[in-house]
């Protein structure tokens, strides 16, 4: 039972990342009707927002302290980050919490990148076939990842977890179990909560604001909304920016769990497409449900007991599920009629 719970939790945080990426992907697809192969690259750009922020905030001055000598007799170099000079202890906290704080950087940056991408290239592809949309966004993904590579190099750049959030939460105790039976790293727990909040936020935004209402109306029938005198294209551009922000913040918070490198986007892209297809093209709840479902399935498949039963299942479970779903239930779990069925 405990093993079961532990695997469930393990799957949930990975599922959170899948769900966030798939949510953005579905949002773009549902509104603009564009199959965006560059969405994984947006996730990767989000990761590198965190890297950039940490780089900027840890710019430091090096002073030589003539009083102290290092063990081999040279004067000790004292490195102090500039922010610490300026803000004192607050600066130290800033450095420690660089990853969560970089969300503040990521939101405007990703919004601008998203809107620029939509206005610059993707807008010209509404009328073209899905194959051509796939191709142009695939090319865009290559360009984005190569730009990142030329700035940050090809090696992964690990990001630290804030000191207070290291270690694991003794979750078992909360549910009345003995201590140390069921533990779960704080950061993963935080990621799970974070993804729940973001997903809830996106849904609330679509459900309870006028803007969201217009967007939902546009998803259902773009032409009619346009005929009512609403500039639906502009709203959809903002939705694309929103999707980029969701992918970006998902990336920022994921950096301590997986050191980002430039081809991270491509690795996540395939998975997130599988998630979207399993959930049903164009269905937002479907994308979220499928994200968590596949994350959990993947974590159960990597249990030793399961692996010894069906060797290699942990490697292929996601694709296997995708193939079975597509063949048996082509609209995915919650797909609507008439989406991508021409």
């Amino acid at each position: 039972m405990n093993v079961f719970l532990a695997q469930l939790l393990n799957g949930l945080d990975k599922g959170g990342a899948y769900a966030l990426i798939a949510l953005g992907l579905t949002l773009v697809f549902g509104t603009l009707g564009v199959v965006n192969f560059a969405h994984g690259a947006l996730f990767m750009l989000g990761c590198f927002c965190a890297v950039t922020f940490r780089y900027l905030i840890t710019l430091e001055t090096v002073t030589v302290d003539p009083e102290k000598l290092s063990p081999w007799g040279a004067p000790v170099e004292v490195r102090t980050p500039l922010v610490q000079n300026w803000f004192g202890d607050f600066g130290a906290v800033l450095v420690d919490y660089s990853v969560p704080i970089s969300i503040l950087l990521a939101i405007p940056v990703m919004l601008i990148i998203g809107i620029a991408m939509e206005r610059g290239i993707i807008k010209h592809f509404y009328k073209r076939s899905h194959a051509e949309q796939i191709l142009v966004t695939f090319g865009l993904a290559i360009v984005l990842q190569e730009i990142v590579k030329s700035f940050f190099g090809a090696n992964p750049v690990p990001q630290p977890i804030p000191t207070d959030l290291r270690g694991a939460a003794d979750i078992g105790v909360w549910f009345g179990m003995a201590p140390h039976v069921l533990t779960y790293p704080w950061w993963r727990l935080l990621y799970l909560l974070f993804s729940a909040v973001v997903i809830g936020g996106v849904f609330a935004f679509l459900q309870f604001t006028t803007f969201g209402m217009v967007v939902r109306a546009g998803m259902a029938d773009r032409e009619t909304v346009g005929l009512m005198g609403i500039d639906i294209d502009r709203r959809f551009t903002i939705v694309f920016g929103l999707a980029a922000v969701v992918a970006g913040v998902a990336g920022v918070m994921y950096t301590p769990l997986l050191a980002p490198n430039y081809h991270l986007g491509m690795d996540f892209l395939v998975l997130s497409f599988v998630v979207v297809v399993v959930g049903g093209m164009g269905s937002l709840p479907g994308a979220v449900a499928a994200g968590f479902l596949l994350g959990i399935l993947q974590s159960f498949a990597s249990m030793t007991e399961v692996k010894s039963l069906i060797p290699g299942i942990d490697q292929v479970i996601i694709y296997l599920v995708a193939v079975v779903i597509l063949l048996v239930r082509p609209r995915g779990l919650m797909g609507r009629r008439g989406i991508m069925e021409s």
Partner: protein
Amino acid sequence: MFSLSRKDLAALAVFAVVVLTMPLWLSPLGAAYPGLMQKFAIYAIFAIGFNILFGLTGYLSFGHAAFIGVGSYTTVWSFKLLTMDIVPAMIFAVITTGVFALVIGYFSLRRTGIYFSILTLAFAQMCYSLAYSVLTPITNGETGLLLARDDPRYLDAMFGAQANIAGLPQPTFLGSSVTGYTGFYLCAAILIVAFYVSQKIFASPFGMALRGIKSNQTRMNYTGFNTKPYMLAAFVISGMFAGLAGALLSITDPLAGAERMKWTESGNVVLMTILGGVGTLFGPVIGAWLIKYFENIFSAINTNMLNNFFSFLPDGLQNVVVTVLSKFVGEGWHLTLGLMFVLIVVFLPGGLVEGFHRLMARLKRRRGTPGGVTSVQPAE
């Protein structure tokens, strides 16, 4: 049965001459060594095969790398178990990939559009992951499948072929070795045959049917046409071409690794086909050559070479130009490729071949050909 129209015959002749004189016209471009030219020929075969599926039917497969991998593994196993001769190896590779493509195609072709792409992608990723993990006894995992001196090679042993005394055995073609220029001409000859086959398919009623499926599958169905077997045949043929390319990769370098099956490799062949021109005969070949050329030559350019090249500029300007350009060559050649690809998809959806046609049309118009040029739009 083997006849071609006069136009196709001329195209084939031109193509054969271009391929066979590769060592001549590639030497000023700095790419005239056999190892690279073999790659040119092999990837051209791959792209031609991919074009039969994507160009004619419009079904975008993102899983063709799996077939290259299967072809490679089969070839190396044939070397290990049967004989070092390449003919049986190629035959086995093509048959095995054909069967593979039949199975994958049977399932994938039940869906169209993006669902088809995702299905092929899922199948290919499954092959890739399994080759790394569970199938290690067959694929030798990350190391890749290698030849060994003490492989059984039953057929060779049966015919009493003498054991190779020094080092590893080399693949042979009817007894003669296939290294260096022999290897290149072998690949070139197969490329010409592959081109001929694709010409025949393009001109055949079968090819017409595939084009019909591309422009309107529903209408094809309503005219009483069962499109399923045609699609499956196209998928299998296309897979077999990829298998043949995989076999040739293993013949020129007897090693098969799982990284050939990664999905970015499938993406590469898509890039090649689009870059050159989808649905045209020459397009995929040109695209494959261009990408392989860039990959090998462009990526070798370094800052020193740029400095030499721009030494005629004033100092400050030279530094700026070199710093900017160095981002696009060497390690960064993928950036150039990506940019080029985006530009082509945006402005020239028909690839370089379409660009060439447009250029020709413009030249003709300038010369004042009567009648002018009317653009032909296919009927929906």
